[in-house]
């Protein structure tokens, strides 16, 4: 397995840890952090500084009853349920977006399949399955698109992306990702605007396909 070479930008990492990213992007960021030790270390280093800041803050008075209430709560409150865990190639945040079930792929044409995980005012999040050597139709998008490779690889004008690699595409990138020949490429893609494909599916039909 090759090392991850395409990472979260500072702005995206900062947006994630401060909770400012829209949900589809936050899921992609959390999935990348699950796979990438380098970015995980960056995030946790930032937490070390947060902890140091917490130790320095001027303490506030806590009410008298707070301490008793706290100790009583240890026995009263049941432990929270275990969150849905990673499974196979899907990190925990992706399994959670899948509701804990394996993906139900829908055919898109050309052997390409997808699962829409969410599509609302926050943007859209989906899984894409691209057969070996196949190209996704050239498309542009109105905003930011994040694509995280979970299996296989793809290449486009921006380079080659393998497992764990994250492509950050702004609206000025017109890209046509092609899956590597070594096997099917499965990736997690988030956008804050609907994709506009140049070919294959007429724009009029896009609402039907929700892509």
């Amino acid at each position, binding site marked *: 397995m090759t090392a991850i070479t395409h990472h979260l930008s500072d702005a995206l990492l900062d947006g994630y840890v401060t*909770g400012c990213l829209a949900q589809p992007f936050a899921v992609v960021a*959390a999935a990348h952090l699950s796979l990438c030790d380098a970015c*995980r270390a960056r995030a946790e280093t930032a937490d070390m500084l*947060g902890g*140091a800041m917490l130790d320095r803050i001027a303490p506030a008075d806590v009410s008298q009853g707070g301490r008793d209430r*706290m100790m009583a709560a240890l026995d009263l*409150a049941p432990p*929270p349920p275990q969150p849905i865990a990673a499974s196979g190639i899907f990190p925990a945040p992706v399994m959670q977006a899948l509701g804990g079930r394996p993906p139900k792929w829908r055919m898109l044409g050309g052997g390409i399949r997808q699962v829409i995980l969410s599509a609302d005012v926050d943007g859209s999040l989906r899984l894409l399955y691209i057969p070996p050597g196949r190209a996704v139709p050239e498309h542009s998008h109105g905003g930011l698109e994040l694509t995280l490779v979970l299996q296989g690889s793809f290449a486009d004008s921006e380079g080659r992306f393998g497992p764990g690699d994250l492509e950050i595409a702004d609206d000025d990138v017109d890209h046509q990702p092609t899956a590597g020949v070594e096997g099917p490429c499965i990736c997690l893609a988030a956008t804050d605007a609907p994709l506009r494909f140049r070919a294959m599916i007429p724009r009029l039909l896009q609402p039907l396909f929700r892509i």
Partner: protein
Amino acid sequence: MPAETASHTDPTLWLLAVRDHRDRAAFLMLFEHFAPRLKAMLMRGGLRDGSAEDVVQDVMLVVWHKAAQFDPHRADASAWIYRIARNRRIDLARRKPLPEPDALAEPEGSEPDAAHVLALGQEAALLRRALDAISPDQARVLEQAYFEDLPHSRISEMSGLPLGTIKSRIRLGLDRLRRHLNDLRQP
């Protein structure tokens, strides 16, 4: 530092006692240490007195229940508890909870690497010393970044500065910190 002294002063050791022995006395020490600081942090983040205390209780309850996930190789108690509080505060402000990365686990049966944990503690101490040395201006920028910046925050309204300027000031503050740390590390 003798181990006995450390065990009475180091929140990380209290947290390990909670993790490994469900030690209530140690948990109480954690509460005494962190509750007033968490409350102050949450109030800086815009919560009122009463709700800040409620959230402190929530956060410390997560500490109690999730202590098994604490890994002293990757964080000290302050950093770990800071992140729990931060995420709790973020979830209160978001429509959907913030998705979190996979919990990392040490391989089954692996021994804790005491030297690594000690080194991390020393790094943290250096960081704290570096924090003592920054200007009040830089400290304010960091406090804002770590206690106040929230989803849909009014940071640019409050300061009258565009977000980009704030961000670059944060970066400058962090960069200064790092360089100061490096200076401290020179033999």
